[in-house]
């Protein structure tokens, strides 16, 4: 799409790359300013303008809501943009080419890592699965990718940073990739190839199809990232608002430690129970995290909450239905069983070490 004009004017403002980067720099400055005025603004709004008495239930709930809503929306738009920009450099074709030559172990590690960062929607699970198998990539390595890719959700990652901090978000990333590697290794060793639907092995890509190589300019990368940020933030907007609303209510009205008995470390059954509850809640991942952050403040333990969240994003009914097209029931059940067990163990591990 690059015209001759843009090639000539290297550093002038008519160069779309320079123009796009200038806009990004300006937006970053505005972003940083806004991010720093949220707290005083929220306090002024709830305790000043609305004259809530300090420490009252309603005042605390409102201050929580007025602070967290703009903060999370700002974080979401800024970070999703940065992640999307990074993701314009990765696509499934490149990932497949890199994973193709690796054996068990390194292959699983790379597949899990790429699964975490490749832009991917679960509706592409089947084409990806077939594409990997066709390239001769072992089943276990293919699964490592297919496990981490839904488990590592951009929106969930950003919300964790906003509500729990970098450490917890990092733990989420680390445990997701670990679950992908370990589950892929286990599934690979189980020799489950015969439970893959036969047509997968019979299919051959036609050799004469032309794929147009894309050479993107910075301005195109930036404009695409802006588009995908708008789309993602637009999609989760109301879930986040409602989630924060419920979280704010819990924050202000539910007594301290009310949940220690049900979701605390001492309640051993809470980890598997929360994984089970998380399975049908797929589409609402964005709204659930603000709620669980309020639960933590009331005595729920972090391991339980992380397990719950990973179950919400990583184990989903639509994904099971989609994968049934290529996996026969025994393999499908084993696949999701192994992931569920891995998530539960991760939950216990965090409850013990944190």
């Amino acid at each position: 799409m690059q015209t001759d004009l843009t090639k000539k004017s290297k550093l002038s403002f008519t160069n779309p790359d320079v123009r796009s980067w200038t806009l990004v720099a300006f937006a970053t400055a505005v972003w940083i300013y806004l991010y720093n005025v949220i707290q005083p603004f929220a306090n002024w709004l709830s305790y000043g303008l609305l004259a809530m008495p300090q420490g009252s239930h309603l005042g605390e709930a409102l201050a929580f809501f007025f602070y967290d809503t703009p903060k999370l929306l700002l974080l979401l738009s800024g970070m999703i943009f940065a992640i999307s920009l990074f993701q314009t450099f990765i696509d499934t074709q490149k990932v497949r080419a890199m994973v193709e030559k690796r054996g068990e172990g390194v292959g699983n590690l790379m597949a899990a890592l790429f699964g975490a960062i490749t832009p991917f929607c679960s509706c592409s699970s089947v084409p990806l699965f077939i594409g990997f198998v066709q390239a001769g990539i072992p089943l276990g390595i293919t699964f490592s990718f297919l496990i981490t890719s839904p488990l590592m959700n951009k929106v969930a990652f950003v919300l964790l940073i906003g509500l729990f901090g970098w450490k917890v978000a990092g733990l989420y990333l680390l445990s997701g990739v670990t679950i992908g590697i370990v589950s892929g290794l286990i599934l690979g060793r189980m020799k489950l190839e015969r439970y893959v639907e036969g047509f997968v092995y019979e299919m051959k890509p036609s050799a004469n199809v032309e794929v147009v190589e894309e050479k993107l300019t910075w301005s195109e990368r930036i404009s695409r990232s802006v588009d995908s940020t708008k789309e993602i933030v637009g999609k989760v907007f109301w879930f986040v608002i409602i989630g924060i609303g419920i979280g704010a209510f819990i924050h202000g009205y539910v007594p301290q430690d009310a949940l220690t008995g049900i979701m605390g470390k001492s309640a051993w059954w809470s980890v598997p129970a929360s994984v089970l509850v998380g399975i049908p809640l797929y589409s609402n991942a964005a709204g659930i995290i603000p709620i669980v952050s309020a639960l933590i403040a009331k005595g729920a333990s972090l391991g339980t909450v992380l397990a719950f969240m990973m179950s919400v994003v990583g184990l989903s009914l639509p994904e099971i239905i989609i994968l049934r097209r290529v996996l026969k029931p025994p393999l499908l059940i084993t696949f999701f069983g192994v992931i569920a067990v891995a998530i539960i163990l991760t939950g216990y591990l965090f409850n013990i070490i944190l």
Partner: protein
Amino acid sequence: MLTIKVLGSGCVNCKRLEQIAHKVVDELGIEAQIVKVTEYPDIMKYNVMSTPGLVVNEKVVSAGRIPSEAEITIFLTNALESA
């Protein structure tokens, strides 16, 4: 005449891509046939691993995202020129 194919098993993004393609074809006032390719064996013939994919005259022009109207306009006019 152009043959435009939308590759995808029928998810929301595939439907949106199809709508945008229709819109661009109408706006350009060109003759084009828009085909939905929903069966996996047919999708895989194009070696596309992330849907929705867009194919213009048997050339894969995009995969794994919804291109903008402006981009699709360029894809179609390029295909018309080279045809």
